[in-house]
């Protein structure tokens, strides 16, 4: 393994759109995104570094353990409003979505909603963390977050009879999966290239696995 001790990398947060915007303006060497490029961004290049499942989460006290993709779509489009229709108790579903522009939301819209709009009565939180917090404290809530962030405070539901797990994502059975991308503009400078090579190497991928993400290799 190469020693990368002398490497200094500046990392900035702000979300997928901010990442893509930054590389478009050439203010960074590599932009990061958790959603695919849209038509206006197609001149950029992407490198997939790993995959991430989106888990549909409920409170651990919730008796509902399994849902179909259609049911999830109906909840977020406002068609189903009660847990009773999903085999739970007679109580409204407190669904939580992410804010407009979020990479997780646009992946959810593409993979789950499939063109159907998310209803205006659905609550909105501005990070994976606060969605998880709402679901962890409200026994009637439902939301979606990155699979790597699911812990014992919330429970992920089985979707179309497939549990969200690394294994099921690798075999392609769990469908709500999005790529994590490095976005580049033109030729990479040598240092950036070395960094990308490290991320794609076994050592780099092991770090991603430790964070709960799905590596490119087996």
């Amino acid at each position, binding site marked *: 393994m190469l020693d990368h001790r002398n490497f200094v990398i500046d990392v900035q947060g702000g979300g997928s759109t901010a990442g893509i915007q930054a590389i478009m303006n050439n203010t960074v060497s590599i932009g990061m995104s958790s959603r695919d490029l849209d038509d206006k961004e197609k001149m950029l290049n992407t490198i997939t570094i790993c995959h991430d499942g989106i888990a549909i989460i409920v409170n651990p006290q919730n008796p509902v353990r399994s849902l179909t993709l259609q049911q999830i779509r109906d909840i977020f489009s406002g068609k189903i409003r009660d847990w009773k229709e999903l085999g739970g108790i007679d109580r*409204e579903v407190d669904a939580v979505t992410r804010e407009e522009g979020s990479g997780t939301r646009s992946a959810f819209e593409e993979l789950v909603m499939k063109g159907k709009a998310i209803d205006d009565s659905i609550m909105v939180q501005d990070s994976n963390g606060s969605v998880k917090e709402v679901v962890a404290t409200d026994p009637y809530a439902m939301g979606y977050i990155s699979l790597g962030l699911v812990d014992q405070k919330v429970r992920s539901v089985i979707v179309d009879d497939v549990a969200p797990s690394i294994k099921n994502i690798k075999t392609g059975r769990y469908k709500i999966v999005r790529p994590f991308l490095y976005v580049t503009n033109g030729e990479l400078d040598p240092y950036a290239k070395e960094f990308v090579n490290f991320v794609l190497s076994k050592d780099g991928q092991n770090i991603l696995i430790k964070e709960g993400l799905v590596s490119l290799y087996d």
Partner: protein
Amino acid sequence: MIEKSLFKERLVKWVLVLFALSSLLFLFLIFMFIFSEGLPLFLKVGLFKIIGGSKWAPTKGFFGIFPMIISSFLVTFGALVIGAPMGLSCAIYLSEYSGKKMKMFLKPALELLAGIPSVVYGFLGVIYIVPLVRDYLGGSGFSLLSTSIILGVMILPTIISITFDSLVSVPRTYREGSLAMGATKWQTIYKVILPSAKSGILASFILGMGRAIGETMAVIMIAGNALKIPGSILDPLRTLTGNIALELSYASGDHRLGLFSTGVVLMVIIMLLNYVANFGIKRKIAK
């Protein structure tokens, strides 16, 4: 000697003027910035489609913020319903009934209340108010009611301090005259003191409204941020400030401009409120 000290006097004066004007300059810059970023979208999409439109989906070309304008006013009104009676009572007690010792204890406590950061209020709301509302009244707890309660407490210091000042500034002779006519203390308060302090009290409510409508952090944490106009006090809602803070980090292009347009609307509302409040205060002083 005299010339030298005169020069010093003048120098101090001009330095002070310079700094005094710089605060005005900041206001002007903020103004310029918000309007130059926010106005283009009004021209592009149309004023009515933004402030009258009911659908907000900026990545799909819908920029309607009408529900948020309504929601902002709803929480502000809710905050007033909860904060105004409490604040008014507290101010009356402080100025008319409390002894010196009580005043010495209450006043600093109220100042402390004003100094608590809004994220702390939001946190308390999420931990205590939201679950209480959810368990005893229903809904998700992230609601108009929870937000109004927290904002009602947050505007208390504003209402109390301005109302207190205007009650104290009612001339002593008014009280003495009323008491001499045989009126009781409470009769004096609600027949003489409150009417003569009326404009100051109204100004305190309006400034409290300004504080409530501009509050952001606590609101995002407890309002639920759903885009629909709430149908009941237990429904979630999204305010103008919440909209900006929620989405700014991810926004680009027209989406970003849409958020600045939201800022323009918010700024106009707050300017109107301040104008009305100042008008109220000026009338009091003119008297």
